[in-house]
């Protein structure tokens, strides 16, 4: 009896299996559309945001520029007129509003150089950093404090007071020297040098009157 029933079911096993497959296939159609995060998930991006590694201090940057570090590209994300007034040496200008422009992707989407983004402060540079990181780009950094920070540390460092440790004096001297390298006070100095230069006067040898040479 049982055997017969089993045989009956078994004879229909292809039908059962086929219908199962069909149901599974239909189920696939009904699945919610697959949502995917391109390049980087929100969690990974947050982990990157929290990581203070993205900031580079102006002292380190100054050292890198002075030693001609070939691995850095400075990117100024301010507008064109601000860039024209003052920018860091050898910086290129990519305004924040054009940061997703295809023309600039060649600069930004690469893994050979360290890109250092900066603006007047951290704000715009951070925004650019976040946008570019979402595209999955590598080696992006932000100048801590932006140009304001640069101005306060390298170009116009506060003089250490007497109760400060020796390191503060060393840092101050380094910053002064770096500032000098970037041209603070150079102009005035040149003028002084110009004054110092003594005109060389080539003395014209006066011809002495010779005594008339006598004949024999």
């Amino acid at each position, binding site marked *: 009896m049982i055997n017969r029933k089993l045989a009956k079911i078994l004879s229909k096993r292809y039908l059962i299996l086929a219908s199962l497959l069909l149901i599974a296939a239909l189920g696939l159609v009904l699945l919610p559309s697959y949502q995917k*995060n391109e390049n980087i998930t*929100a969690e990974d991006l947050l982990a990157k945001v929290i990581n203070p590694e993205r900031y580079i201090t102006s002292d380190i940057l100054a050292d890198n520029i002075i030693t001609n570090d070939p691995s850095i590209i400075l990117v100024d994300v301010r507008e064109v007129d601000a860039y024209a007034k003052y920018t860091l040496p050898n910086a290129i200008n990519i305004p924040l509003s054009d940061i997703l422009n295809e023309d600039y992707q060649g600069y930004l989407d690469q893994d050979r150089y360290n890109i250092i983004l900066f603006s007047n402060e951290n704000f715009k540079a951070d*925004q650019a950093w976040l946008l570019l990181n979402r595209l999955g780009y590598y080696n992006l950094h932000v100048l801590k404090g932006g140009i304001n920070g640069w101005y306060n540390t390298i170009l116009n460092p506060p003089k250490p007071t007497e109760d400060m440790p020796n390191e503060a004096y060393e840092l101050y001297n380094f910053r002064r*020297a770096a500032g000098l390298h970037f041209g603070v006070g150079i102009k005035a100095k040149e003028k002084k040098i110009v004054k110092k230069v003594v005109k060389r006067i080539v003395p014209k040898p006066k011809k002495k009157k010779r*005594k008339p040479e006598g004949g024999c």
Partner: protein
Amino acid sequence: MKELEKTKRISISTVLFILVLVIGVLTFKQPRNVYKKTQEETLTAIKSTDYLVHLEDIVNKNPVIIDVRSKSEYTISHIENAINIPTAEILENKSISLLNDVKNTGETSFIYGKNPEEANSSWMLLYQLGYDNMKILNVETHHIDNKLVVRNYSLEKPIANYADIFKTIAPEKIEKVKKTVPKPRKKVIPVKKKKKRKPEGGC
């Protein structure tokens, strides 16, 4: 006999196929947070400064305020009725459900930190995840005597005309100079003076 083996193989393979499908469906996992705005949309949002709000604009409105500073700073003092969600915890289930609640009520929430820069990263992240009902409080906050002082902040403002510094006089003499290239010594070539000769006489 041979035919029977063939059918067996077919049925086994079908069963396996179905199994694979079932396992696939069961392990199907949606990412928890999905970006709802593209980079371009975010960029246009950044370009307009609508998302920056001063403190005066939100007084008397009893809005939802989110504090992204650390817990310790929050416990010292915070803006009244502010909710503390440190930046690091912004994507945790608890905070996401809270943000969803706020979004569903249709209210606007305001983020603040030590300065707008601190609030910026959480704001941008959440904006891209679709929470477009948020704004940044354009203020800087710090503690004085365990009380929170909130001041309006002028963002991205240059502290000085940078180019002016290059017109200033030379800095005072530097005692210790790091990393300077030693100057080559000037070679002084002494010029020998020619001795005056006595005028040569005639014969």
